[in-house]
């Protein structure tokens, strides 16, 4: 055997080994399940495919949890993991799902909205595959997902994405971005079917408030805020002012631009009677000028480059040696959701929405996120759900 052939065989074996090891890890990530424990307030669990065609039997179909009080009242929908690389949304929604008790009205939660995105990785961006939250019973492990759905589930992409129904031209990737495919269509691409089913849920269940939870870079001007269209502006403003006065954190209001289509805070308001809100908390992990993309950066938000840039006034949020820990972000979301419900109730007493047994900002920061998660090994089997 010549030396060149021997080298080639060695090279093929080397590449083959790398591909096998890496491929298996990616396969495991896609099929990893995080158990969700339905809390005392959960009264019914449906599938999003119950509301729109084309999702049943696909990886895109996702659980919809209903927390319905005996007393009729307002209805609020919480959507998390629209972007699965912004995990404070999922964690916040799980705190509600595993703990909240609704005394009046209905709370509907979709914790893993873009389930395909949650099983996707961001090629080229070096994310960790998982992150873990400490609890009193051990560590709860979650997948780190991607902003867009997996090409394994929706492919190919067009050369340019033409938004329905406005025909606005968007980046080709946005056809897999479930915060660009609203209001969706029943016979469109899979992600358009997903947002269409969510729109149908909102319309059929007569949802009053929709809150889509996100995270954004510290160098992005639209961060640490509530994005709201004109019809939701009053409640958003009152929420922002109250949070600042009562709980001491900033969460300014950003108007939803009418010329930028496909976003939940724009299209849900335009295509239903619901009042949409989009919550953004700072997420240093997503910033470009950071050190290694590690689990620690994701959870604690501490980064030396961002700290220097903060001192040069180049960030849009206050930033110091403490970073932006996950508990702070999740706490902000919890308080903002509860405050929006409270402000809505104040304005619409006939549609009151009363939620109890859910922590606010200071409690989450003090006790940690994990203290609100239930041990799946001790929960009843019928209360454990997987997507």
């Amino acid at each position: 055997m010549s030396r060149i052939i021997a080298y080639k065989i060695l090279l093929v074996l080397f590449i083959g080994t790398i591909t096998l090891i890496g491929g298996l890890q990616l396969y495991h990530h896609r099929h990893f399940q995080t158990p969700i424990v339905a809390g005392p307030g959960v009264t019914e669990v449906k599938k999003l495919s119950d509301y729109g065609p084309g999702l049943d039997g696909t990886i895109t179909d996702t659980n919809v949890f209903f927390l319905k009080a005996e007393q009729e009242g307002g209805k609020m929908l919480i959507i998390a993991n629209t972007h699965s690389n912004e995990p404070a949304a999922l964690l916040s929604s799980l705190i509600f799902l595993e703990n909240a008790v609704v005394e009046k009205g209905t709370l509907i939660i979709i914790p893993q909205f873009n389930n395909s995105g949650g099983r996707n990785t961001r090629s080229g961006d070096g994310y960790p595959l998982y992150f873990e939250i400490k609890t009193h019973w051990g560590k709860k492990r979650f997948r780190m997902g991607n902003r867009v759905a997996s090409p394994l589930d929706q492919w190919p992409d067009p050369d340019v994405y033409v938004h329905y129904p406005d025909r606005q031209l968007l980046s080709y990737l946005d056809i897999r971005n479930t915060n660009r495919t609203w209001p969706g269509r029943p016979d469109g691409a899979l992600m358009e079917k997903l947002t269409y089913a969510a729109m149908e849920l909102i319309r059929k269940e007569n949802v009053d408030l929709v809150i889509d939870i996100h995270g954004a870079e510290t160098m992005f001007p639209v961060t640490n805020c509530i994005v709201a269209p004109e019809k939701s502006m009053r409640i958003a403003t009152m929420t922002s002012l109250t949070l600042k006065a009562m709980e001491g954190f900033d969460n300014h209001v950003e108007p939803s631009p009418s010329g930028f289509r496909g976003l939940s805070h724009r299209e849900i308001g335009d295509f239903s009677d619901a009042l949409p809100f989009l919550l953004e908390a700072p997420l240093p992990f997503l910033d470009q000028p950071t050190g290694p993309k590690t689990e620690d950066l994701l959870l604690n938000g501490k980064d030396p480059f961002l700290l220097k840039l903060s001192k040069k006034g180049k960030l849009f949020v206050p930033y110091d040696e403490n970073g932006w820990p996950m508990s702070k972000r999740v706490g902000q979301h919890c308080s903002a959701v509860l405050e929006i419900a409270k402000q809505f109730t104040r304005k619409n007493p006939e549609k009151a929405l009363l939620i109890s047994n859910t922590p606010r900002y200071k409690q989450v920061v003090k006790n940690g996120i994990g203290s609100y998660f239930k041990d799946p090994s001790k929960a009843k089997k019928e209360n454990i759900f997987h997507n």
Partner: protein
Amino acid sequence: MQTQIVFTFLVMISAYSFAKWRKVSVEISMFLAALAGGIFGAFTKTPPINQLARHLVEGSFAYLDVILIFVTATIFMAIISESGGVNYVVKNTIKYFYNKRLIALLLLMFITLIPGALTGAGSVSLLVVGAPVALALGYLGIKRRKVAAILFIIAGLSAAAPPVNIWAMILSAGTAIPYVGFELPLGIPVLLLGTFTVLTLGWKKQEKSTLESALKQMPQVPKGMKWWRVLIPFLVFFGLVIALRVWPFTLPVIGLPFQFVISAVFALILSPKKINIVKLSRDTVKKLTPLLSTMVAVGMLQQIMTATGVRGLISYAVISTPLILLFVSLAVIIPVSEGVFTYGGAAIIGIPLVWFLDSIGLHATVAIAGLSLLWPLGDGLPPTALIGRLSVMVSEYKRSYWSFLKSTWIPWVVITVVGLLMVIFSTQLDFLVKWSL
């Protein structure tokens, strides 16, 4: 942490330089740089060693779509060429416009601009029309070095041209700015700069030739080749592109690679001579392998640079630069980022840069358009030199790559100045966006 990132960066540079010194190819050098950076980073678990293989595999898929476009577009064009269609087009271009130089040059510029403008990839322009345009320019008495230079600049501008500009799309998606209003801020400079380029590099007839001698030198056109045999496959391709824009809610999304495959089937059926498609496809992929593997290696490198923090370090350095110096240095930073990361440069440097420019009151859309003119220049720079290498390949320029690159300096400088002025005076130029809407 910062010291460790700097050392990781140095290890990657050293690995790349050593590999190049040992005359290892660009793509393998990049792979070795990624591997070395990943192993060095693993000492501090950035990334953990048990994740290194996964990062390499994951990164290798970053440009899979681009790779599929390259393969299918090149096979499509290879069929056109093998059927004699390329020779037919060149012969007729020369026959009808040989003595109308201005029209001939502008026509060839438009032909080169269209595929890239519709797909957002200058490489597609070169793969689809590069070879016949190169031949036509050659018969117009332009030296091969300048032919390659013209093709490189025009193909780059085609990628920046509306309606599809991948850099602007990546930046728009990453900065939550709608991808609208780019038609005039991109279209006007592309047309002006394209015209300037073909006239500057191509106006002077450097090699003696006459129409008769040019026609004599041309390769034989196969019997039975007619204009419609060449035109129909292109009409099918552009027809699909346009149809998918006009009826996006009726037609299914089939993707550019499949659009090229459909067009290739038409080209195959319409060919006046029999083509062995298996052999042709095999030869084409073999020819493309260095480019395809470069794209695979770029993805791996980008992934490791992010996982180790090197990408963040580069991004930080750009943003920390004082404003005046930043504007001046954009002339270097932007093309170099493209040369290293291809489209990844827009994400790594472009997104924080646009946020920063937006925050100091500049008009983001016009600024993105200005930056979009600078990125394609980087496609001539190593290590990737994607469009540069293709330009040299399709124009069959055999001498050193640097001698080709040097001949692009006049349009390069003018494009850089125009791009920078668009960024600096973006607020004053916002009327271009308003007129586009």
